[in-house]
């Protein structure tokens, strides 16, 4: 059964107040086109999980995000994600910091269908500081309260291996997971190259899974090598073909970062006016993703195309200069 829909149709399934995880991380394999469509459809009060870098920061700038729970609010070499930075510093977004292993283990619990997992992950740090525990504030704005645990964590003594005090980490539950990937079959089977980030955990446990893919291929083709696939069709609800769907980020084996675009984003978005102007050009000034691509121009995109066998654009062979 084909699950192929348009980007607009897919994003209509994201509801105000949903808890949401984007696939990819930093500026790699981020579902940027999907994020732009969410802003275009003016979704509200989303709870962003995991990290807030390229795609998440666009949502924050677009006023779609009420709260964020995660471990990373930076666009890597391009600086702290500018929109969430500004909103954090003005106290106009709820942030609940957890660790990178916390996110991993919370999503692992989701994937494995277990309520919690013990670890020493954040012992000794301010992640466990009750004064900074914003979980209940996050739960207040979430549309579906059941997505959030009753408590941020519980401390107990390890009864099995004498490891001392350990932290019980609850599952991170998701209304929606949106992944951008290299290849998907029309029934939803997904193949990813490069880091899987959290995609292979989040997509297996989210209530609704939207996949945007550089290429949609016949399901029979992608099933020729089941060991190479990363998300089963049984976990995917909608598939959308979105070439260059992670631009200005990179997609291993497909294209590299558009560094000037990323720098321009970083510079523009230090103020809300700056983001709004950027959005006027790249979100509201485009009817959809094809318009966005035409505005970028084919020759600009061609320069970003990854070189085999490396999967990126080597610095010494043209490309980004």
């Amino acid at each position: 059964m084909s699950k192929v829909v348009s980007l607009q149709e897919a994003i209509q399934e994201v509801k105000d107040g949903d808890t949401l995880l984007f696939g990819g991380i930093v500026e790699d394999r981020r579902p940027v086109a999907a994020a732009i469509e969410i802003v275009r459809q003016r979704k509200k009060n989303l709870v962003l999980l995991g990290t807030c870098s390229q795609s998440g920061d666009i949502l924050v700038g677009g006023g779609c995000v009420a709260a964020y729970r995660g471990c990373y609010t930076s666009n890597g070499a391009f600086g702290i994600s500018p929109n969430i930075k500004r909103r954090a510093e003005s106290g106009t977004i709820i942030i609940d910091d957890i660790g990178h292993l916390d996110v991993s283990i919370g999503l692992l619990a989701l994937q494995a269908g277990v309520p919690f997992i013990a670890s020493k992950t954040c012992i000794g740090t301010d992640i466990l500081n009750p004064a900074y525990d914003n979980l209940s504030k996050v739960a207040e704005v979430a549309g579906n309260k059941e997505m959030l645990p009753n408590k941020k964590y519980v401390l107990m003594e390890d009864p099995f291996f004498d490891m001392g005090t350990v932290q019980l980490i609850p599952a991170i539950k998701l209304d929606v997971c949106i992944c951008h990937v290299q290849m998907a079959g029309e029934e939803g089977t997904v193949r990813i190259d490069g880091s899987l980030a959290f995609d292979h955990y989040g997509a297996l446990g989210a209530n609704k899974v939207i996949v945007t893919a550089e290429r949609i291929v016949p399901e029979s083709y992608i099933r020729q090598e089941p060991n190479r696939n990363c998300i089963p069709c049984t976990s995917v609800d909608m598939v959308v073909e979105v070439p260059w769907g992670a631009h200005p980020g990179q997609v291993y084996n497909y294209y590299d970062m558009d560094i000037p675009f990323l720098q321009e984003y970083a510079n523009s978005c230090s103020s809300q006016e700056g983001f709004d102007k950027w959005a006027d050009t790249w979100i509201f000034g485009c009817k959809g993703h094809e318009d966005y691509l035409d505005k970028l121009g084919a020759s600009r995109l061609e320069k970003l195309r990854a070189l085999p066998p490396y999967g990126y654009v080597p610095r010494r062979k043209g490309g980004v200069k």
Partner: protein
Amino acid sequence: MTQQYAKISEYTPAEAMVVYAARFLANFDGKKGLIGTGLPLVATQLAKMIYSPNMVIFVETGQADANPKELAISIMDSRLTYGSSWQMGDPEGLYPLSRNEIDFGFIGGAQIDKYGNVNSTFIGGDYNKPLKRLAGTAGAVDIGVFAKTTVILMAHQKRRVCEFVDYLTTPGWMVKKWPEGTLVRREELGMRGGPGCFISSMGICKFDEGDKIMYLDRYFPGITPEDIKANTGFDIDVSRATEADPILVDEIRILREEIDPLNIYKMR
């Protein structure tokens, strides 16, 4: 490489920091390191090229034994995948830490205190309305908890090297025991590892075996222990310090020409 020394005017403080860090990594040739984002990636790339070719690099986005042919721009850069033994995702990238396999973690940060606690979450103001919001934990908390030793890289400024961090992201030697938040030695919470070395833009600091407080071990050429005292937010012990061996012309050349020719990391 020739042994010709570079003049102080021929490199920047950021470059000095990265070169001394790369030299320090010679201690970990053949060992397993989990490398954080930012300048640690640069120093590791340089070290792997000249001082510790057999260092085994793990990255928190799931590469095992990464062998990047060129400097990664971020922690999930495609450059980290090609040539690695295994590519999974972030969880699998971090489990080697919780499995206690990682010999050294290597991180940056925005603030470090005399116990080696590191802050990469916020500075000033209140958690819910900070003066300066930062990147958050990423893998820094996990490295600080689980790596057998941690190496920290950060510019040396008075507000950055302080009495106690505004937010304790990466646990050092004196950490917080919850629910009260009492300061205790990390061993008391059953934690192994701990910070081994802080390499700054001015010198190299270590931690006293007894009281676990930071002291100056080396100052870079052109920098005096007094400069470092003036740029440190607590009364740092400089009595054990000696001058570091000068930087080599070739180290700077390789850093500029081979590692970061496009100056992506704005070190110069």
